[in-house]
């Protein structure tokens, strides 16, 4: 009888012990699952004439990212006298890095698809417009006509041993530079085994994956405040860029002028759009396509994106929002309705 009582007590104690142990194990398991979610840190930088924000898991990568941003700028900015692009613009024969050759080839292909309305050879035109002047005025018609002629005739000649020569025009990679930089920096972050966000101005790379996806706000083109959003995109492993007519603009004698030029006219494009946001496989491509699609307008712009497997969000001057149907699950407007195509 006594033995039976002792046995029952021992069995009861064993049950209690097992219960506590099981609960603690489950608790630690759930804790460890949440602990796996990375804690991101933000690093600020400046390059390509814009502010850059890097959201990373391990901030020890900061110096490498900041150095890579400077390198990208030194490679492709026509304003940096030592850059390959500046040398080409001076008429020198230059050995170009493979990444820059690929960039210029893609730009040329997109230029052809827009019948020359998008061109990275448009420095003669862009240099006529000074949107940062205290009292900006549109250039004289004769100057624009001359610049359009120079741009139209420009081409990059491949020579022997990887050397290139620019014939006519001048290269301005302003519509591509930030995306080109996000590509380089995103590669660095991925090679370091980190997930995170590379943002150079409005060109953004989402590297890797985050629980619930990275949330990227799309700025409302009708508001001057950067805090007012058109909507929010959720993405992983992708590149986003926006071109809008609201960023750099001025009014002269009652007429509005913005900075996205049609290379065929040398004038700000009037396509009925106020902004185009593009998601693509690379930052440079997203940058180029957002500008080219803005120039082409709604229908032709969507057709261009489809050719590159890219997705887009177009906002018209009337405030209508059109988006690629592939974004129906990942894009949410803050108000109103999206028309999917």
């Amino acid at each position: 009888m006594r033995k039976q009582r002792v046995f029952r007590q021992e069995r009861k104690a064993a049950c209690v012990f097992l219960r506590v142990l099981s609960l603690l194990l489950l608790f630690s398991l759930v804790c460890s699952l949440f602990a796996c979610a990375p804690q991101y840190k933000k690093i600020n930088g400046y390059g390509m004439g814009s502010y850059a924000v890097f959201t990373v898991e391990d901030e020890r990568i900061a110096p490498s990212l900041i150095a890579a941003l400077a390198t990208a700028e030194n490679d492709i900015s026509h304003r940096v006298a030592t850059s390959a692009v500046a040398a080409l613009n001076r008429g020198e024969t230059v050995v170009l890095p493979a990444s820059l050759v690929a960039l210029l080839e893609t730009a040329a292909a997109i230029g052809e698809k827009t019948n020359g309305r998008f061109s990275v050879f448009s420095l003669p035109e862009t240099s006529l417009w000074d949107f940062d002047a205290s009292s900006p005025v549109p250039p004289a018609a004769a100057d624009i006509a001359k610049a359009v002629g120079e741009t139209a005739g420009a081409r990059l000649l491949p020579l022997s041993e990887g050397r290139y020569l620019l014939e006519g025009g001048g290269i301005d990679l302003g519509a591509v530079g930030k995306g080109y930089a996000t590509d380089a920096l995103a590669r660095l972050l991925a090679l370091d085994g980190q997930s995170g966000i590379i943002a150079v101005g409005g060109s953004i790379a989402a590297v890797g994956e985050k629980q619930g996806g990275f949330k990227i706000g799309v700025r409302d083109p009708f508001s001057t405040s950067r805090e007012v959003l058109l909507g929010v995109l959720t993405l992983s492993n992708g590149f986003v860029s926006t071109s809008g007519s609201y960023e750099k603009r001025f009014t002269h004698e009652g007429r509005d002028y913005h900075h996205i030029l049609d290379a065929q006219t040398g004038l700000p494009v009037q396509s009925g759009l106020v902004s185009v946001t593009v998601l693509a496989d690379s930052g440079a491509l997203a940058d180029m396509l957002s500008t080219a699609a803005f120039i082409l307008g709604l229908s032709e712009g969507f057709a261009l994106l489809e050719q590159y497997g890219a997705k887009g969000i177009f906002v018209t001057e009337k405030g209508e929002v059109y988006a690629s149907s592939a974004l129906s699950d990942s894009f949410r407007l803050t108000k109103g309705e999206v028309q999917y195509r």
Partner: protein
Amino acid sequence: MKPSYRLFRKWDIVALVLLLLLPLLLFVGLQGREEADTVLVLYGGEEIERVPLPTDPFEKTYTLSEGSVTVAFDGNGAAIIASTCPRGSCVESGKITQGGSGSYCLPLRFAIVLTGEGGLDGVTG
């Protein structure tokens, strides 16, 4: 009465649910731990000052090599209210109040950024 040797009883299930909820609540709480209570003042990408959001509003002028910028700070945000840059879009962009958002004067390479997450990982446009 016949003794019960079930591994889990009703109160064990309650305890289990509480133990599962605890790390979830801790996780959610820690995610938002960086509050939007400080303004980072940046020049050329470098942090030049951290200004805690003040109880009493004040204005401060930053003199830079390219020009000068005046920033107004108050209890719920900050705004660039004057700039010698010709474009002036930094002044037009108004006050920043949400964690992670910023106001930029690119010709002067100047920026103010509010600390905190604000729920977004980036903004395009």
